[in-house]
């Protein structure tokens, strides 16, 4: 057979398979939007659930997820950025920095349910935080730490070496140089990484299953030692544990769509920011 023809057919085959992947992703989004959108209204977003979630809205779950992600980022951001600064600005290629890199790689690969077990053992039981926003946030923070470190380090390294040299040559100390002439220009990457981390934390179920989430709790938390509902867990409960799972299908779709919009919105925001900053800073 003519080799041009072979190539053409092969390329079409490759394209077909690739587009099949895209179409299936598209179909998932389409299905959830189609069934979820009619359910979402002001009442659904701002009302408390009633009759163990069969009626009413999902406000406590939305707020619970918001609290959890705020707690997560409050812990993970300073630690992650600090670690990234150390790796990009201070660390020589020695055993210690190798060990840190190994640790980050390991953390990135630990299954989320194992984070749940870890959080249960350390924060819930050993530290006696109980199943609470605090325990859940700390667990999620450990989980998203590698995301923030990797993104921040990358953007710190993207700052030209000349900025550092010029500043040092003027007699600035290392920390002054970092604070005034490196960090400000890498803030975009740090923000992008943080948003991705928030998106990940907001969508995770397994870690909070064991450390924070409440099955059905139609009130808002008073302190960080309280349990909360959370969107992903609420969806899981409605879909698998609810006595009338079939009947509450629309509510499941609605919850799924809210969660999806939250997470994809975060990711979309991160992508837009990345493009925006890329245009703004060129050196």
């Amino acid at each position, binding site marked *: 057979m003519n080799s041009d023809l072979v190539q053409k057919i092969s390329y079409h085959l490759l394209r077909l398979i690739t587009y099949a992947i*895209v179409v299936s992703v598209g179909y998932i989004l389409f299905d959830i939007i189609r069934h979820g959108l009619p359910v979402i209204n002001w009442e659904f977003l701002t009302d408390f659930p009633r009759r163990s979630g069969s009626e009413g809205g999902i406000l406590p779950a939305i707020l619970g997820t918001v609290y959890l992600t705020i707690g997560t980022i409050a812990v993970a951001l300073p630690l992650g950025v600090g670690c990234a600064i150390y790796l990009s600005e201070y660390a020589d290629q020695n055993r210690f920095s190798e060990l840190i890199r190994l640790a980050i*790689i390991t953390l990135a690969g630990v*299954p989320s*349910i*194992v984070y749940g077990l870890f959080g249960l053992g350390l924060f819930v039981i050993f530290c006696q935080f109980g199943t609470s926003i605090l325990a859940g946030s700390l667990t999620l923070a450990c989980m998203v730490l590698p995301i923030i470190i990797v993104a921040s380090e990358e953007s710190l390294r993207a700052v030209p070496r000349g900025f550092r040299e010029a500043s040092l040559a003027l007699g600035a100390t290392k920390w002054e140089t970092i604070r005034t002439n490196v960090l400000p220009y890498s803030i975009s990457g740090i923000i992008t990484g943080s948003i991705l981390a928030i998106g990940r934390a907001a969508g995770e179920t397994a870690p909070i299953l064991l450390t924070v989430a409440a099955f059905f709790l139609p009130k808002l938390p008073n302190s960080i030692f309280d349990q909360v509902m959370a969107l992903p867990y609420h*969806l899981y409960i409605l879909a698998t544990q609810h006595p009338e799972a079939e009947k509450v299908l629309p509510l*499941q779709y609605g919850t799924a769509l809210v969660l999806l919009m939250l997470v*994809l919105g975060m990711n979309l925001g991160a992508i837009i920011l990345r493009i925006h900053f890329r245009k703004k800073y060129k050196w």
Partner: protein
Amino acid sequence: MRMDKFMRMLLVSTASISILIVALIFLFLGKEAFPFGFDPGLGKLFDTKWIPVSFQEERFGIYPLVAGSSLVTLLAMLISIPLSVVGAIYIAEVAQPVEREILKPFIEILASIPSVVLGFFGLVVLAPLVKNVFGLSSGLNALTAALLLALMALPTIITISEDALASVPKSFKQASLSLGASDLQTIFRVTVPAALPGIIAAIMLGIGRVIGETMAVLMVSGNSAIISFFPLDSVRTMTATIAAEMGEVPFGSHHYQALFWIGIVLLLVTFVLNILSRLVLKKYGMAQ
């Protein structure tokens, strides 16, 4: 200068926290699991039955759970590897630049869909489909779980394979093309073989992702703790077992400790896969 020393110390300590967390993960999983080693003894884990709650004899054999995890992982990989490698080749080597810029966000979107949402989709759309196609009484089985997991492994394998393909030196391709090879021949005889270590590493990371995945399998695998290698049987994975049972076990019981042992097995398997694949990527200069 004093400020400088202080900041240095502060940054060193924050950086050390990642090491500390890894150590604490091993420590606290070990701590909760440890007593099981004395009573009833580690041998109890090597058993063919997982019956943690029973009036006669409680049994904590993890073989059915390992079998369940293996079966869904194997099936998921059989589906995912060809699709994702082809996808990576297409995106890296065939697609036009504009097309690439459209395709890549789709892969990123797939990576960011929460697993509970995919599990939900599997439950309400995929499982009924599998049920009808195969004429089963329930669509909650290893195949349905594997289909979802395949979808979740796609972004990992595609992204890293694509990086590996892109890092193949242009000179290789030019040499091949200058010898009269067609684009297609060059892709499959030069580029892909050169990127193979990276692709293998990508697959290993994908396997790690799949073995550790919890919510989607919990929702659609049917959760019967039986040893089976038939795709249309309901199975129960290690992750799903922890997620489903940890909420109801008495703290400190044998059952509780056994669940932590499962966590340790998971941790070790993913740890080894992760480190191996990073070593491969590093050795061949394909790490991002």
